[in-house]
């Protein structure tokens, strides 16, 4: 992960961790979908199988937490914190508005993973915006 164009030892470790969790997520999701489709489990077993793909995603969030703990560059850490806050605020805002619409007007729930995708999109945009505002001149 490069924050503001800077790669730090902590960001390299974060990148390695995420690179492990992503193929793991794809593998367990494919496995879970295949099992549900062909073995037709039900009851608690169905829920247990359906929960397994969430574990690598939770691990991804854990990797972000570890990154924040390990990042020694305080400016880069601040940029990451602000971006995480922007992503979290966006997800909370969208979810609370949707919840109000659902409870009062009977609107439909948002599609699955809306919060997850929104979080990382806003997180990325917030990082890019901060990078743009602190452009480093080549001759400095």
């Amino acid at each position, binding site marked *: 992960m490069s*924050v*503001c*164009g*800077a790669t*730090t030892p902590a960001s390299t470790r974060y990148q390695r961790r995420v690179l492990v969790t992503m193929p793991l997520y794809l593998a367990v999701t494919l496995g879970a979908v295949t099992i549900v489709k062909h073995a037709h489990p039900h009851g608690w077993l169905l829920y247990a199988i359906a929960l397994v793909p969430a574990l690598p995603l939770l691990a991804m969030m854990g990797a972000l937490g570890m990154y924040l703990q390990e990042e*020694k*560059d*305080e*400016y*880069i850490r*601040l940029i990451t914190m602000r971006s995480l806050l922007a992503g979290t605020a966006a997800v909370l805002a969208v979810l609370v508005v949707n919840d109000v619409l659902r409870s009062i007007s009977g609107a439909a729930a948002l599609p699955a993973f809306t919060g997850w995708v929104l979080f990382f999109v806003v997180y990325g945009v917030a990082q890019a915006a901060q990078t743009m*505002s*602190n452009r*480093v*001149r080549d001759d*400095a």
Partner: protein
Amino acid sequence: MRNRIRELRVERGWSQADLAEKLEVSRQSVNAIETGKFDPSLPLAFKLSRLFGRKIDSMFQDGE
């Protein structure tokens, strides 16, 4: 907060990358400090103080 970090760095003929290496931070951090976008923590301010041989209050001025 205004500071004299850029001035002190240029006096010594260091690039932002040189200063970043001495401080063990990213070049982006040095740029953010020099442009006043980011105020360093006390430990980093003391590091700057030792590096430039100046007191902290001679390098940073309260902008208020």
